């Protein structure tokens, strides 16, 4: 009924996308306390005290930290023009959601997941980011940072996904590509320092405000997008399915991933590579809606081959993790000798800026890590002025990286936030230590992928599917 008034290609989904911003503040619920304004790393929120605040969507990097901190809720004693049922519908949330609704919120997309799962011809594939498996249990009363990859996989199978794959697999592929790219830049005097490109809020910020530095950004797509491309090409081949029938869902700790999957250039597979992103919280709400008792589920594995992962892929979910995973592989690729110890404590840490120098078998690498985007500008100034002496910079917008992302379970008590984030981070490292394979280049399914399908890292096929030209993307958006 909507399509009649528009171009044939405009569907209800497009209309929803056009009309609902990914991050917004509900004027009826906002008390104007200003806490979101203070936490926003890019000063995208404005408003006078005690009056509803607004998000400037042009500046907003969609990190969702305002959603996490917001405490203006639909108090049951107060009457609002919009009823709770209407509010749930407006936000794209399930009618069975019981939790309080807060002023700062993100666009819900769960109805489209249900629709895809109920469409008989659709082949549904799901991927989960590393940080989801150390947080989703919290929504079911489990302790902060409870590590539940087996239950997560079991729940996704129970919901009816045809393939339960993993972003961690693609994180390992990212290391193959990004590691090779770093080595190439060092050996061929390319632009240094190279920046990580897996955090979509960081990429958007650089495009929006520092586009003179885009050459520094790794050309690698994020693990989510690499996974999406591989599912509709390599994955479709394995299952002998027409990729047009695949509906690819990503479960992310991040609200900006919703934006990333909709970027027009993210279609190397010939289709939109990732069809839809839902957050950790949205998945928890769907699991409850379906009547699945999450804590009682027996562990199940992720599906092979694209659900096979190493400890290195898993630590992408916290600050320093991409760096550590990259160093575990790059040092070995450069020298032919593995690092003596895989616990790279010197790149691990908390919010802020960290720097480290690694010397291994005559190779010296300098790296920097920024957690929390509000800390980045001084580092970028150092790079502009030529003072930066490091080769590789990892940036994550959120305080401790993805474990504290905008789509993660919302911790209600401010004085428990840090405890929750540290718990999730510890969960990721514990999982890494428990896995038999802890280096991305040792992932047997990644080796097979390159052998059977991609060829070499940075090779023709890999370049086409897994890389993007950031300096040109801006013209397309």
């Amino acid at each position, binding site marked *: 009924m909507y399509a009649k008034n528009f171009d044939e290609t405009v569907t209800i989904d497009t209309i929803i996308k056009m009309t609902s911003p990914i991050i917004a503040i509900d004027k009826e619920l906002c*008390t*104007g*306390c*200003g*806490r979101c304004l203070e936490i926003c790393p890019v000063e995208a929120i404005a408003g006078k*005290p*005690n009056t509803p605040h607004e998000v400037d969507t042009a500046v907003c990097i969609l990190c969702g930290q305002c959603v996490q901190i917001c*405490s*203006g*809720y639909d*108090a*049951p*004693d107060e009457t609002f023009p919009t009823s709770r049922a209407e509010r749930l519908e407006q936000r794209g949330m399930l009618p069975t959601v*019981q*939790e*309080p609704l*807060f002023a700062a919120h993100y666009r819900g997309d769960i109805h489209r997941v249900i629709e895809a799962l109920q469409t008989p011809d659709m082949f549904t594939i799901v991927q989960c980011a590393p940080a989801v498996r150390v947080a989703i249990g*919290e*929504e*079911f*009363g489990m*302790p*902060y940072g409870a590590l539940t990859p087996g239950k997560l996989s079991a729940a996704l199978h129970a919901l009816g996904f045809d393939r339960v794959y993993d972003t961690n697999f693609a994180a390992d592929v990212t290391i193959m590509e990004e590691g090779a790219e770093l080595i190439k830049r060092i050996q061929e005097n390319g632009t240094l320092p190279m920046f990580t490109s897996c955090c979509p809020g960081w990429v958007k910020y650089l495009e929006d405000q520092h586009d003179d530095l885009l050459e520094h950004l790794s050309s690698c797509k994020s693990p989510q997008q690499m996974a999406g491309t591989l599912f509709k090409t390599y994955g479709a081949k394995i299952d002998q399915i027409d990729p047009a029938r695949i509906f690819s869902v990503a479960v992310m700790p991040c609200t900006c991933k919703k934006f990333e999957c909709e970027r027009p250039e993210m279609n190397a597979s010939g289709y939109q590579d990732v069809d839809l992103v839902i957050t950790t*919280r949205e998945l*928890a*709400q769907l699991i*409850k809606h379906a009547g699945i008792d999450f804590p009682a589920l027996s562990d199940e594995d992720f599906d092979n081959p694209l659900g096979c992962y190493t400890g290195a892929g898993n630590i992408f979910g916290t600050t320093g993790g991409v760096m550590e995973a990259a160093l575990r592989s790059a040092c070995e690729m450069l020298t032919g000798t593995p690092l003596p110890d895989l616990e790279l404590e010197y790149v691990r840490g908390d919010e802020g800026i960290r720097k480290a120098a690694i010397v291994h078998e005559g190779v010296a690498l300098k790296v920097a890590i920024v957690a929390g985007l509000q800390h980045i500008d001084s580092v970028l100034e150092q790079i502009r002025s030529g003072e930066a002496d490091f080769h590789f910079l990892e940036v994550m917008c959120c305080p401790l990286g993805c474990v504290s992302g905008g789509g993660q*379970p*919302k*911790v*209600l*008590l*401010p*004085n*428990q936030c840090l405890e*929750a984030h540290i718990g999730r981070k510890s969960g990721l490292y514990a999982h890494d230590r428990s896995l038999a394979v802890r280096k991305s280049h040792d992932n047997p399914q990644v080796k097979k992928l390159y052998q059977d399908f991609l060829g070499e890292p940075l090779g023709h096929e890999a370049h086409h599917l897994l890389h993007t030209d950031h300096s040109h993307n801006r013209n397309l958006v």
Partner: protein
Amino acid sequence: MNTPYRLNRFVIADPGKCIGCRVCEIACSTVHSREKTPLTAGNMNNPVQSRLYLVRTPQGAVPVQCRHCENAPCAAACPVLAITQKDDVIYVDEDLCIGCKTCMLACPFGALKLVPVFENGLPVEQNLPLLSETAQPENSNGDSDGYKQLHVVIKCDRCLGLEQPACVANCPQQALQVVSPEEHLAARMHEAAVSLAAVVRNYTS
């Protein structure tokens, strides 16, 4: 406690510091939840039920809550002795409350509130059938037509058993504090003495 006759302590907000964020209400509701696991929003399967109430006025916002009166009129008025004095807290035994609202009428601060009762996210029904055809049961779970939801009175218990009340511990502006009347009085007297000393010194010199 130094003295058995200690006056009841209470929580009070500084209106100059309060930004109206409602964290105190969320914190209050969270620590008093019957499920005891509401670490994250997804665990809140009841509406927020706070024991202090953010009041927003054109002059600004501030939460109001129980003063834990020494001759508590709510306790004196309660016909079923559901309100008692525990240590230095005026305490409601919610299991005894019959919802008569007498305490609400007696309280000069509006610190007591009747709220619907939930268990495991589902409404608890009253024993008395609802005969009116026009009145629909509130928050019905679908099979409870003809019964109204049970309501009991709740009020601040100053987080008995916790080191610090949740509202005080979580206020991002440190706008809330526990006031001990004796200490408050001593501090005020000290301030008065200091200012008086300054006045006298200025006057004599």
